[in-house]
C-alpha cells in the first residue's frame, strides 16, 4: 500500500509564537473561526450521511462494509469538530448543531450534500473530498489554535486509509473496462466543479490567516488541484483542467459550482437530506437512547 504525504506547506508553518487564546480573540475573529470550523465539520457530517446511505446497497459486500465504515469515520470527525465549537466558541452541543439547524445555517460545500447517485459518483466524490480534506487537516496541524491543531492531527491519521481506499478503487476502475472508465469519467465531470467549491473561503478568512489559525484556502486549492489532476490522469481519466504551459501548474477549465454554500446557500437536496437525518432526533428532542 502506498501512503500519501502532505508535507509541503511552506507558506503555513507553525512559528515560535505562543498559541492563541481563542476565548480572548475579538468577536469578528471568533465569528470567522466559528464559520470556518463549522464549514469543515458540516462537510464531514453530510458526506458521512450521504455515504451511509450505501449501507446494505454497496456494489459488493466487502466494499459496502468498507464504505460504510468510512462514512462513520466522517461522522466521527464531524463530532470532534462540533465539540471544539461547543467547548471553545459557544456553539450548542454537537447534537444540537447536527440535528437542530435548518438548511440556511449549514456551511458545507454543496458537493457533500448531493444525493449519492451511482457508486461511481459516490466514489469519485470521496476521492476528490478525501484528498482535499487530508491536505486541509495536514496544514491545520500547524494552527496557532492548539486544540484545532491537535484535532487536525488526530483526524488526519484516519484520512490515510481513506485515500488508500479511494486511490486503489479509482485507479483500477479507471482502467478496467470501457464501462467502468466511462462511468467514473461521467462522475468526475459532474463532481469536479462542485469539488472546487470545497475551497470556497468562509467570510473573513483573511483575519484567520493573518492570525495563523488557518491556512489560506486558495493556496491549498492550488496544491490540491495539482495533486488530484496528476492522480486522475494516471488513473486513465481526464479532469476538466490542463497544466499551464509556462509553470506546469494545473488550471481548471471550469468554474466553481454552487458558490455561496459556505454562507448558507444550498440546494433543495439539503432540505430533503436534513429531513431524513434530523427527523428522528426532532421527534423527541432530548430523548435518552
Amino acid at each position, binding site marked *: 500500500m502506498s501512503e500519501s504525504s502532505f508535507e509541503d506547506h511552506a507558506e503555513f508553518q507553525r512559528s515560535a509564537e505562543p498559541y492563541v487564546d481563542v476565548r480572548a480573540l475579538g468577536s469578528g475573529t471568533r465569528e470567522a473561526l466559528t464559520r470556518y470550523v463549522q464549514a469543515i465539520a458540516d462537510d464531514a457530517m453530510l458526506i458521512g450521511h450521504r455515504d451511509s446511505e450505501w449501507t446494505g446497497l454497496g456494489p459488493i459486500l466487502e466494499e459496502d462494509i*468498507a464504505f460504510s465504515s468510512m462514512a462513520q469515520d466522517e461522522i466521527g470527525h464531524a463530532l470532534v469538530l462540533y465539540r471544539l465549537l461547543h467547548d471553545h466558541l459557544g456553539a450548542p452541543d454537537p447534537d444540537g448543531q447536527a440535528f437542530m439547524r435548518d438548511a440556511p445555517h449549514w456551511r458545507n460545500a454543496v458537493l457533500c450534500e448531493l444525493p449519492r447517485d451511482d457508486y461511481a459518483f459516490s466514489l469519485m466524490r470521496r476521492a476528490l473530498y478525501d484528498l482535499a480534506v487530508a491536505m486541509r487537516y495536514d496544514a491545520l496541524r500547524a494552527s496557532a489554535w492548539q486544540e484545532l491543531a491537535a484535532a487536525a492531527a488526530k483526524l488526519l491519521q484516519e484520512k490515510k486509509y481513506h485515500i488508500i*481506499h479511494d486511490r*486503489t478503487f479509482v485507479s483500477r476502475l479507471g482502467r478496467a473496462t470501457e464501462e467502468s472508465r466511462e462511468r467514473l469519467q461521467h462522475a468526475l465531470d459532474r463532481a469536479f466543479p462542485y469539488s472546487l467549491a470545497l475551497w470556497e473561503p468562509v467570510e473573513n478568512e483573511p483575519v484567520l490567516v493573518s492570525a495563523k489559525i488557518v491556512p489560506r484556502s486558495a493556496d491549498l486549492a492550488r496544491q490540491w488541484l495539482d495533486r488530484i489532476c496528476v492522480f486522475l490522469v494516471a488513473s486513465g481519466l481526464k479532469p476538466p483542467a490542463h497544466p499551464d504551459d509556462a509553470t506546469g501548474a494545473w488550471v481548471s477549465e471550469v468554474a466553481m459550482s454552487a458558490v455561496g454554500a459556505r454562507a448558507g446557500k444550498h440546494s433543495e437536496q439539503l432540505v430533503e437530506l436534513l429531513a431524513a437525518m434530523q427527523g428522528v432526533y426532532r421527534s423527541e428532542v432530548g430523548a435518552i437512547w
Partner: protein
Amino acid sequence: MYGDPSSEPTPEDRETSGEMPFYTREWHFDPYHQALSFAREHAPLRSEADTEWLLWEVFQQAHRGEHHTHVGSLHAPDAELALVLAKENYARRGPCVNLWVIPANQIHATDYDDADVFEHTTDKSYREPSGYHGLRKAMIKGRGGIQPESTVGVESEDE
C-alpha cells in the same frame, strides 16, 4: 477433475472402487474452497476467469511478534484490494498491526474423511506436559537413596 465437486469421487466411491483396503487409499488434499476449481483450471491467478472475484483468506496480527490469526475471508480481484478491504472488514475493531491475505485456492486441506488419522487410540499422554505430572517426584522418591526431606522446592504428594 482435481478439486471439482462434480467430477470428484464421493467418499463412498473412493472406498468401494479400488481393490486396496480403505486404509491404503491415497491421501486426498482438497483445495480449501472448491468453488474456485473452474477459475483455477482456466487461469489460476486471473480474476476474470472466475464469475466472481477471487476469494482471499485474511490473517490478522494483533501485536508485533505474535502469530497471525485467521479472521475470515473476503472477495477481491487482487491482493492490494484484498488488503484494502480486509482493513475495514476485519481490522476495524480489535488491535491490529499487520494483515496477511492469501488466495484461498493456494490453501490445501486434509479431508474430513481422514480425520481418523488425528485420533489417539492409545495413551499418548507422554506427548503432553501434563503427562509428566509427578514423574520427577516419583524418580526422586522411588528406587531408594534420596529422601523427600532433602529435596528442596519439590512439593510433597500430601499437598
